[in-house]
C-alpha cells in the first residue's frame, strides 16, 4: 500500500516538471546537488562581489585626483562603470555623477540579488559561512582597490605624461575591466542557476526577482527588530571609521600613517574573520546570541575609545572582530524569519534602510563633530548602540518563546 503510494508520488513528480530529469551519472562538479558544484557557485559569487566592490570604491581610492547575481543588474553596473570612466575621460563631471548615481542603484541591487542567491543555494547548510565569505571578498575588493588604484594612476600618469582627467579616465577604464570580469562571473552564475533549476526541479524564479512593496506590511516583528539592529549597528561603526583618522592623530598622538592603518584594521580583520565566524555560527547556531555579543563588544570599544587613553589598537581590533561576527550572524537571520517568496523584498528593504540610515547619520556625525567634538560623537554612537542590546534581548526572548511553543506542540 505504502509502496504503491510512493510510486505514484514519484510518477507525479516526474510528470510535473517537463525538464525535470534526474541524471545520476553527472560528475561531482556538474551536479548541482553536490558540494563541489556549490563551491564553484560560491567562488563565482565571491568574485562577482569582489569585482563590484572594487569598482564601487574607485572614487574613494582616487579621491585626491578627482574632487548583484542578477544578470541585468550586473550589466547595468558594468555599463555604468564605463559611463563613469567616459565622463572622466571627456571631463564631463555631470556624466560622472550620472554614472555614480546609477551605479549606486546597480551596486546595491546587486548586493540584494547576491544575498538572495546565497540563500537559495546554501540555506540550511552553510549560510553563515557563505555570508561571511561574501563580506570578506567585498572588503578585500575595497582594500585592493584602495592600494592598487593609486599605483595604477601614477603609472598611467608616467606613461601618458599628463595629469587631470585623461589619466583619471584611463585609470577608471582599467578599473572597469574588473567589472567586466565580474560580469562574466555573473553570466556563468546565471547559466549554472538556470541549469540547477532544471535538474533539481527548484522553483528559482520566485525567490525575489519581483519586488512587491506591499510585502512590507507582512513583515513580522522579529524582522523589524533585525532591521533596527542592522541600521543602528552600521550607523554606529561606519561614520566613525570615516571620521576616525584625525581622532587617532590628535588624541592618541599617532602619525598619519599609523592613523590610517588603525582606521582600516576593522576591514582588515573582517576579511579573514568573517568566514571563520560564519563557520562557527553555522556549527553552533544561536545567531541572536552572537549578534548580542557583537553589539555589546562594539559598545565596549566605543566607550574605551571615548573615555580612556588606553591603546586604541585594543578597541579597534575588538570592533573589527565584533563587526565580522555581526555581519555573518545577522544577515542569514533574515532567511530564517522570512518566507522564501518575500526574501528579495526583505533583503532589499534591509539594504535600503541601512543605506538611508548611513547617509543621514554620516551627515549628522559630521555636524556633531564640527560643533561638539569627538567625545560627544562617541557618546552619540553609544546612545545608538545601547537600545540594540535591549532589542537583541527582545529578539532573544521572542525566539526562546517560539522555541518553547514548538517544544510544547511537539510534546503534545
Amino acid at each position, binding site marked *: 500500500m505504502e509502496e504503491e503510494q510512493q510510486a505514484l508520488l514519484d510518477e507525479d513528480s516526474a510528470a510535473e516538471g517537463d525538464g525535470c530529469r534526474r541524471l545520476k551519472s553527472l560528475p561531482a562538479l556538474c551536479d548541482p546537488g553536490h558540494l563541489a558544484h556549490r563551491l564553484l557557485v560560491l567562488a563565482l559569487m565571491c568574485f562577482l562581489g569582489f569585482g563590484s566592490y572594487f569598482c564601487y570604491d574607485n572614487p574613494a581610492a582616487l579621491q585626491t585626483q578627482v574632487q548583484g547575481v542578477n544578470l541585468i543588474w550586473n550589466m547595468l553596473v558594468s555599463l555604468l562603470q564605463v559611463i563613469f570612466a567616459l565622463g572622466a575621460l571627456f571631463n564631463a563631471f555631470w556624466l560622472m555623477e550620472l554614472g555614480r548615481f546609477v551605479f549606486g542603484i546597480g551596486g546595491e541591487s546587486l548586493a540584494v540579488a547576491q544575498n538572495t542567491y546565497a540563500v537559495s543555494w546554501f540555506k540550511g547548510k552553510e549560510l553563515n559561512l557563505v555570508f561571511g565569505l561574501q563580506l570578506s571578498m567585498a572588503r578585500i575588493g575595497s582594500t585592493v582597490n584602495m592600494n592598487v588604484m593609486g599605483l595604477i594612476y601614477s603609472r598611467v600618469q608616467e606613461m601618458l605624461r599628463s595629469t587631470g582627467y585623461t589619466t583619471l579616465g584611463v585609470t577608471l577604464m582599467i578599473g572597469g575591466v574588473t567589472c567586466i570580469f565580474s560580469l562574466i562571473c555573473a553570466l556563468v552564475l546565471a547559466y549554472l542557476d538556470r541549469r540547477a533549476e532544471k535538474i533539481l526541479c527548484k522553483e528559482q524564479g520566485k525567490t525575489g526577482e519581483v519586488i512587491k512593496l506591499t510585502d512590507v506590511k507582512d513583515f513580522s516583528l522579529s524582522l523589524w527588530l533585525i532591521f533596527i539592529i542592522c541600521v543602528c549597528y552600521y550607523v554606529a561603526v561606519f561614520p566613525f571609521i570615516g571620521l576616525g583618522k*584625525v*581622532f587617532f*592623530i*590628535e*588624541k592618541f598622538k599617532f602619525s*598619519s600613517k599609523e592613523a590610517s592603518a588603525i582606521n582600516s584594521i576593522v576591514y582588515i580583520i573582517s576579511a579573514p574573520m568573517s568566514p571563520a565566524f560564519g563557520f562557527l555560527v553555522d556549527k553552533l547556531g544561536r545567531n541572536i546570541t552572537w549578534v548580542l555579543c557583537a553589539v555589546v563588544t562594539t559598545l565596549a570599544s566605543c*566607550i574605551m575609545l*571615548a*573615555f*580612556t*587613553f588606553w591603546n586604541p589598537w585594543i578597541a579597534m581590533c575588538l570592533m573589527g572582530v565584533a563587526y565580522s561576527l555581526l555581519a555573518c550572524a545577522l544577515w542569514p537571520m533574515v532567511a530564517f524569519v522570512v518566507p522564501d517568496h518575500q526574501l528579495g523584498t526583505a533583503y532589499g528593504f534591509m539594504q535600503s534602510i541601512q543605506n538611508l540610515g548611513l547617509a543621514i547619520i554620516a551627515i549628522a556625525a559630521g555636524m556633531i*563633530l*564640527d*560643533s*561638539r*567634538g*569627538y*567625545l*560627544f560623537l562617541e*557618546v552619540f554612537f*553609544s*546612545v545608538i548602540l*545601547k537600545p540594540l*542590546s*535591549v532589542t537583541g*534581548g527582545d529578539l532573544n526572548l521572542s525566539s526562546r518563546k517560539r522555541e518553547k511553543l514548538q517544544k510544547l506542540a511537539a510534546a503534545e
Partner: protein
Amino acid sequence: MPGSSGGCLSVLCLLGSFYLLAGDPGGCCRKVSLQYNPGLNSSSVNLLHVRAVGCNNTLHYVWSSIGAPTALLVYTDSESSALRVNWTKLLSPSPAGAIVVEPAGSVLYSTAVVFSRVFEYNGANTSDLTAVHEDNFYPTYDLADFSWESVNRTLNETALSATFQGVSVSDPKGAFRNGSISFRVTAYEESSRDTLLPRLLHTANSSKVEFIVNRVAPRGNGSRFALEIITVEEKGGRKTLESLRSINDEYTPTIFEVAQLVSDARNDSAGPSFLQWKATAYSSQNAMREDSYHCRYYPLQTANRTLPRLSIAHAYFGEALASQHSVAAINISFGSEDNEAYEEKGYLSWSALIGFGTPPKDTFSPLVMAIMVVALGTPVVLLVAGSFVVLLVQKKRLEEMAAKDHLA
C-alpha cells in the same frame, strides 16, 4: 581717569568678593584701560600699555614691537600703580631702566614673553622640527628686524584689542609684498569663553595673544612655519612645560591637549604666571573644525639661553636680565606632513593666553555630563531592573510547578 572709576571699582570689589566666596577661580572682574605710547606723540614705534585694575591689585601688560615683539607682565598690589616710560632712553641703544612701574615697592612679580623668530622649513617629508635637516630651512625671519604699522589705528576700546602688524624689512624674495605677520592682543575684564575657535577659557587675570601669518608667500613647496618664544623669569624662578590631556574636546573639536608654561608656585597674592595654548592653529579667521592645523610644541630649552635681541624686557629688567633672570625658549611648529593648508589658504592663526594665577582649566559642560549620565546610566538601571523581573518570574514559575506537583 583713575579717579572717576573709583566708585565703580568699589562696587566691582564687592561683587568680586562674592565671586571669590562662590569659588570663581579666575579672580574677580577688572577694569581695563588701554594706553598707546604714553608720553609720546609719535606713532613710529608701538608700545601698548594695558592696565587691568582689580581689588587691591593692578596688572600691567606692556605690549611692544620695539625690538623683538614682547609682552611684559607686572603684578602690583596697589590699585594706583602707574607705568613711567623714558622714551629717549628706550629708543637709545642701551634702554636699561627706561620702563618703570611706580611705586616700585608695589611690584610683586614681573615676567616677560618675547616672540623672537619665525622659522620656515620644508615639512613635506616630516613636520617634526627636530627631524628636519638643516638644508631644508629657509632663512629665519627675525621679528626684531620687522617694521610695524601703527597700532593706534587698530586700537579697539570696546573689544579691548589691538593688532601689531609687521613686515620684514629685508625681503629679498618679496614674501611680504601682500602679506604680514601680526600679533593681535585682547584684554579681558572677566572670566568667560571666546566664541571663536579655539574657544579658550580666559580669566580676568589673563590676556590673549594671537600670532597670525597672513598671506606671507611661502618660499618653496611644502613650507611650514614655526615660532620661537622666549620667556624671562625672575631671579630664582623658572617656567615648566606641562601638557594636559583630556578626553573632552567639546569646546575645541578634535583637540584633546592643552599645553602650558607655568612658573613655580608663589606664596604671595600674585600667584604663578602662565602661558597657555591649545595644540592647534587655524587657517581662517572665522575658523571651523576642518580649518585646524596640526600644531606641535617642542621641549623647553633652558640651558644657557640669552635674549638674542633687544626688547622692552631689557628696558624693564635692566642689567639684571643677563645675570639674574632665567631665560628659556620653546618652539612651536604648525602644519603636518600631508596637509598643504597654508599654501591653499594663506592664513595661519595661533592663540595663547598669558596671565597670572592658576591657568584656567576646561571642564565638562552640563549638557555632556547629563547625556553621559543618562546614556551610560540607563542601561545599568535597565539591567538591574531586568534581572529583578527575571528573578521574580522564575520564582513564580517555581511556585507554580511546586503547586502542580502538590496537586498531582
